[in-house]
């Protein structure tokens, strides 16, 4: 681009590239990948499942622990079919599952509404950060399950106390995620919005919240796990008509295969909730790396 100019005009300083003559062997090689990293995903998952089932079967077969405590995989498998049939035919287990689902969904809805509002208060205002945040941190360090008897005393043994504990547990990660997310925008982005004369509301809605969505969704995913734990814990402690109550009753009658199969169906519910959060995240946060698998997958 820059040419050296002399009195006689531009002058070429370069020369053709020459190398020593001769022939060399091809050096084509490929990078070594350990065999365990080459196993396809489906095979890897199936192999791991098989291994766990085999160990389970072995422990049961050789009576390493009492067969009352640990039923065989086959017994659990048969009970999964029994419970599945009851649920699909609209039996009492479906009603219990629906009850727990309602608790979880209501709990999550309250947690999102309260958690997001508190998160904006803490992340956006210095009053929130200085006055509200210390109290939230103090409450967050307490074991929240310990509040369950209080909620039962206040709200009774119906659905309300379960929703309350579920929401209570799930609110904090959403507050933290939202507040952290609102701080994620960098100095340049803030300055750009200020030079454009953007209002506080515009800055929040058009810049800070979108920038913070990855953190907000991290909070929502932790909350989605917590809301399940809260609902089931409240059912264990406060009875009711949900799935947690079925588990408690089965366990007290030492029907361990039933406990296992109920937990499996419960985990389907938890998985569906978690997965719907991830699906929404993928739609909204399509521009962020972590939105594909839910974890940051840059190696």
């Amino acid at each position, binding site marked *: *681009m*820059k*040419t*050296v*100019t002399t009195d006689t005009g531009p002058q070429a300083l370069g020369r053709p590239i020459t190398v020593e003559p001769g022939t060399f062997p091809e050096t084509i090689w490929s990078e070594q990948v350990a065999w365990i990293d080459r196993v396809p995903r489906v095979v890897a998952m199936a192999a791991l499942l098989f291994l766990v089932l085999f160990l389970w079967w072995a422990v049961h077969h050789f009576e390493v622990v009492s067969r009352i405590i640990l039923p065989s995989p086959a017994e659990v498998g048969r009970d999964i079919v029994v419970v599945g049939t009851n649920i699909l035919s609209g039996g009492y287990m479906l009603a219990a599952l629906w009850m727990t689902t309602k608790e979880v969904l209501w709990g999550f809805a309250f947690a999102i509404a309260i958690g997001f509002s508190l998160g904006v208060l803490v992340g956006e205002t210095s009053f929130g950060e200085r006055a509200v945040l210390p109290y939230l941190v103090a409450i967050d360090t307490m074991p929240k399950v310990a509040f369950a008897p209080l909620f039962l005393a206040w709200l009774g043994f119906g659905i309300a106390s379960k929703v309350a504990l579920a929401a209570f547990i799930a609110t904090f990660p959403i507050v933290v995620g939202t507040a952290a997310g609102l701080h994620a925008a*960098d100095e*340049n*982005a803030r*300055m*750009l*919005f*200020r*030079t*454009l*004369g*953007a209002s506080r509301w*515009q800055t929040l809605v*058009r*810049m800070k919240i*979108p*920038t913070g969505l990855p953190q907000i969704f991290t909070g929502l995913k932790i909350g989605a796990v917590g809301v399940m734990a809260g609902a089931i814990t409240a059912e264990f402690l406060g009875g009711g008509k949900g799935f947690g109550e079925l588990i408690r009753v089965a366990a007290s009658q030492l029907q361990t295969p039933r406990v296992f199969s109920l937990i499996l169906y419960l985990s389907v519910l938890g998985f569906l909730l978690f997965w719907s959060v991830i699906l929404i995240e993928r739609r909204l*946060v*399509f*521009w*962020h790396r972590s939105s594909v698998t839910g974890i940051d997958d840059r190696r």
Partner: protein
Amino acid sequence: MMQSAIPVAEQPVGRSLARPVYQLRNVSKSYGFGKIRALDPVDLDLRQGSFSSVIGPSGCGKSTLLKIMAGVTPPTTGSVILEGKPVLGARREIGMMYQQATLFPWLTAIDNVLLPISIRDGKAAANDRRSEAQALLELVGLKGFDKVYPRQLSGGMAQRTSICRMLITEPQVLLLDEPFSALDELARDFMNIELQRICLSRNATAFLITHSIPEAVLLSDVVYIMSPRPGKFLEAVPIELPRPRTLEMMTAPEFGDYVRYIRSRLDEGAVTA
């Protein structure tokens, strides 16, 4: 505190008659309740259509000065006048660019360009300017990239998109904080020539912060030299090379003279400060 003794810069012939657009008088800034003196008092006139650069060691208060001029940060002392009116906050006449492109990853390139309109005048107004934004992207060589998201753009392409975002509001004044210093040298030369073309065609007034002496000489009518922190203006160097400037001029002896002179003055500033 000592008043800056540097007189308002002599303007090169032909532009000296232009009226001052930006006027700074006794503008200084301290942070931390006067503990950190970031910028000593500065006096400055920027004339309509002129291109000025500021060069100085890092931490000498260049970005601080720019933020004060943009109405983003209030000065500790002094006054900033733009088009005869004091700057007391964001002003529509101003367009800004920083070292980072600062595009928003959830907006397509064209929506990033239209963001200033959409913030200032609403989404409907932004939609009306869509074809204009398209034309700007074409102007900087990004034809067909309007619906692309920023993460698919290279650093240079992102920076060109952010130029379009600055230009869409048709600013009369461009405040540029090391806009191309993250780019490689080839891209940077190209962008500098683009920037000159844009400024000349719009008769815009530009104020550029840079670390590169050749870049400052290439683009400017006046180069201001700043001392280390707390920054003050040491000297104004008028660059009397013809316009439009070309990259070939960078090899001319006069160009080298300017570069050497500015370098020596910067070194002296570093020693005496």
